[in-house]
């Protein structure tokens, strides 16, 4: 039971970070391997606000998300938008380049060591039930994840902005013809994706750690979630992330010799049988 719960929590954390990628990669069709860099921005912002400025955790997390969103807007305005129509390969190379720069920059300013991170008291500790140990922070992650899923589903599925976004992605020219400001929609969406990354990064410091290698270390996981979940699909990403978390934790607890092998195998098998992901729709590209 504990394994399943821990797996759920890890999955939820993966989901929190990857859902931002699901937005940029899935909805905007941009293979953004630099997603982990935005998560890292959030992580560093949160860790520094906590340790140096002494800002409370619940306030630091939204600020971290905002910082990542700001970074996202700046980069989208200057660089990303030139590459919306480029091939996937160009996007991959470009974002790997960004990743390298982010890693080097973080290294330069913050050094190679892990950032210290102290949770506030009310999120520490465990609830012990018979046969089940619940870490309070893990429970907190799951709650945040659920709230976010519902909110995003509502935002993309049932608001005016969501409709504009889907229209802008499906056919930018027609959307423009209908008076939708496509550039602005894309900028906002990219900011949303980055903010989610920053949020996930901030919440993830406790479990994943934070050092300059972060963007490269975890990008594979984020990509797996999005690829398996089906691009541009929040429900799919959630399911994929949870599955991945449970498989990963179970694999590491039960058969440590095998390590991360399990999740890569799961991903490859999934992609072979469902190249479009769980709930994916066929893409045109």
């Amino acid at each position, binding site marked *: 039971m504990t394994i399943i719960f821990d797996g759920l929590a890890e999955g939820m954390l993966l989901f929190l970070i990857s859902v931002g990628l699901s937005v940029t990669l899935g909805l905007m069709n941009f293979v953004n391997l630099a997603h982990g860099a935005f998560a890292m921005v959030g992580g560093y912002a949160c860790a520094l606000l906590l340790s140096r400025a002494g800002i409370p955790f619940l306030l630091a997390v939204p600020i971290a998300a905002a910082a990542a969103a700001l970074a996202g807007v700046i980069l989208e305005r200057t660089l990303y938008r030139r590459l919306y129509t480029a091939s996937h390969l160009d996007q991959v190379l470009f974002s790997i380049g960004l990743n390298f*720069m982010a890693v080097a920059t973080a290294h330069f300013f913050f050094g190679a060591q892990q950032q210290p991170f102290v949770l506030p008291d009310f999120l520490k500790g465990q609830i012990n039930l018979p046969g089940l140990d619940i870490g309070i922070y893990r429970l907190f992650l799951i709650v945040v994840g659920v709230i976010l899923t519902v909110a995003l589903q509502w935002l993309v599925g049932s608001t005016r902005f969501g409709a504009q976004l889907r229209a802008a992605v499906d056919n930018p020219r027609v959307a423009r013809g209908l008076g939708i400001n496509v550039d602005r929609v894309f900028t906002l969406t990219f900011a949303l994706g980055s903010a989610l990354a920053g949020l996930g990064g901030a919440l993830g410091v406790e479990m994943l750690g934070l050092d300059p290698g972060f963007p490269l270390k975890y990008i594979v996981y984020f990509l797996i979630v999005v690829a398996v979940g089906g691009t541009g699909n929040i429900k799919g990403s959630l399911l994929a992330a949870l599955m991945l978390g449970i498989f990963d934790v179970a694999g590491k607890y039960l058969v440590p010799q095998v390590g991360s092998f399990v999740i*890569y195998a799961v991903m490859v098998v999934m992609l072979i049988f469902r*190249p479009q992901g769980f709930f994916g729709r066929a893409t045109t590209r």
Partner: protein
Amino acid sequence: MVREPALHESMMRPLAAQAPESTVAPDLAPLRRAAAWRVPEVIFWLIPLIAYFLFPKSLSLLSQIAITALFALSIDLILGYAGIVTLGHAAFFGLGAYAAGLLAKYGYGDPLLGLAFAAAVATAVGFLTSFLVLRGTDLTRLMVTLGVAMMLFEAANKATPFTGGVDGLQGVEMTRLLGVFGFDLYGKTAYWYSVAVLFVLFWVARRIVHSPFGMSLRGIKQNVARMPAIGAPVHGRLVAVYTLGAAYAGVAGALLTQTTQFVSLDVLAFTRSAEIMLMLVLGGTGCLYGALIGTIVFMTAHHFLSDLNPQYWQFWLGAALVLIVLFARDGIMGIAQRLQARLARRATP
């Protein structure tokens, strides 16, 4: 490769039957002319010779460059010519490295035998995985290649008794090359061996990309939908070139093992897959010399800059990549060609 033209003809036959005029042999002269060796190429291949006498102290670095160039060549065949995106090409490099290392460790230290064995292993795995990779879109391909490479990485990482895990595979003992040349401390044999293998395989690759098979690959890259219409079996061609690229990468990996007599786990690492792609893009994709020149520039810059400060190097590497994608999509070779065209225009106003 030899049977490819035959396959091609059999696909063309129904068309030829309907239009008897078209059985006249097409004029192949332009293709032959394109395949002829040119002067700059000959000069280029003098570089390894000159480098040997110019930098006798850095032969190990030079061998590394030759080996990496071969690896870049392998990804150029797949990505540059056939347009198959991959984020996990190090899988085959690593397979070759471990195959050659294990073979040598268990008593068969003959270098050429090791190369053949590594090529065979990489070919087999490349052939099998090609069917997984060729399904789906670009994104799926990126993920599947990545996944396969990561699986191999984890397998090598955890199979400690077999591969040495993170400590690397030790005890690789090579016998004399061709029974004559021992691997010396200065790396002379290693250098000439790497350069010779690179040259031979480059020559083969050059023949392949100028063959009808190579032309059909470029056609597939340009327009997948139309190639079946002119009788090219797209899937078969892609499987063939993916397997070929895997074999090349395997040989490159084996060379690394044999010249360093050690296999470290990072032969399979994600960064290796990413870096080799950078080198190719830096030099220019879809051009064999692009792969070679990109590798030379990258490795040289890496050698000098990372001595200065590793982080510094990584930052500028990232910046260079961003700039290349934004402004010089065709790499150094593309820039060179544009310069050449401009000079030619100026010469003949």
